[in-house]
């Protein structure tokens, strides 16, 4: 976690990349939004884990530890690769198939690398993204972030919990 926080603090990123709290992981950082999670998952976490566990076996206590961490890294990178492929602005047959294969690998090996983790319905639903990519194209055409932004704008309006009467009561309230 320290390595991830160092990266968030020190990495030079373009201004269009959504910022992430420097103290990510601390209680004070609060809950991340979906877009912030995407940035953490596709940028900071993979670079941090690869710099710690990938290609530097000599720095680990033993070869067994190095092998174990490399397997966990490969498993995590399957999920990272799936997210990157699913979020691309264009999609192809190769990318859709690669997404499905990465997701299969990650879900099938989840209990091997993390025995305490239970399967959630989200693991199943992620497979349907493959169907939706095939049916509707890139996720940016049909994901719900625009509606999330609209909900956020509506929530920030002053209101009195009575639908349709906000203007009247905010004017006279």
């Amino acid at each position, binding site marked *: 976690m320290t390595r991830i926080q160092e990266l968030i603090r020190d990495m*030079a*990123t*373009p201004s269009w990349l959504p910022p992430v709290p420097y103290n990510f992981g601390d209680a004070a950082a609060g809950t991340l939004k979906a877009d912030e999670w995407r940035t953490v998952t596709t940028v900071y976490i993979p670079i941090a884990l*690869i710099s710690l566990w*990938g*290609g530097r076996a000599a720095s680990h206590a033993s070869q067994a530890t190095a092998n174990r961490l490399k397997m966990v890294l490969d498993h995590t990178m399957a999920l990272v690769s799936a997210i990157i492929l699913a979020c691309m602005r264009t999609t192809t047959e190769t990318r859709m198939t690669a997404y499905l294969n990465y997701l299969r690998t990650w879900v099938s090996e989840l209990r091997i690398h993390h025995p305490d983790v239970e399967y959630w319905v989200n693991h199943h639903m992620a497979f349907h993204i493959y169907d939706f990519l095939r049916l509707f194209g890139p996720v940016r055409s049909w994901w719900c972030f625009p509606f999330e932004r609209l909900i956020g704008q*509506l929530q920030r309006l002053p209101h009195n919990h009575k*639908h349709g*009467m*906000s203007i009247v009561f905010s004017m006279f309230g």
Partner: protein
Amino acid sequence: MVCQLSFLCLDSLIHSFAGQLESTMTLSYLKAGRLKQWLGRQDCPAFLRECKVIFDKAFRKSSVNDCPAASAFGPVPEGLKHVICGTKVALRARHSVGDIVYSRCSTHVGNSLVAFYPGGNRSSPPIPGSIQHIAVYPNQDVVYLVKRQMPASPGLVDPYVDYPHFPARLYTNALSPDLDLVRPDWILSHYA
């Protein structure tokens, strides 16, 4: 199709549960979003794209691509004469292409890091580099002067090659002493 269905569902929903305020805001938001999406399409008619240019000029605060004042043009600095042809040039801090802003490294390091195709040859792999200067010619042509990121030592194992769909490669922090002249359309993207 999905957008249309969502629009119809949301339209009926807000008429059922919300009042005039929510209805007006939601429909305005949806229509603006659909217009923006339509203006961004390749097959959008040219005259509509012209309207977008006018809207952008009217409602955006300022453009980083505004033409520099005549007094900003001066002789080419000594250190840049070997890469810049011409006698007069203006140096600026940033330049935007579409919605993407590129900066010189002394202004914003993150916005100065770009992967570019040397010579505009897109069949070769993109090269990472840092924009040192942004130069504008009197005819409004813009060029970036970029120092390349030095490759990692030959004997060093790149841990990122194991993950072909994670777009990262190993380079050193050092920059090449030489400057490359890069046109804005030779750039693939920013990198971090």
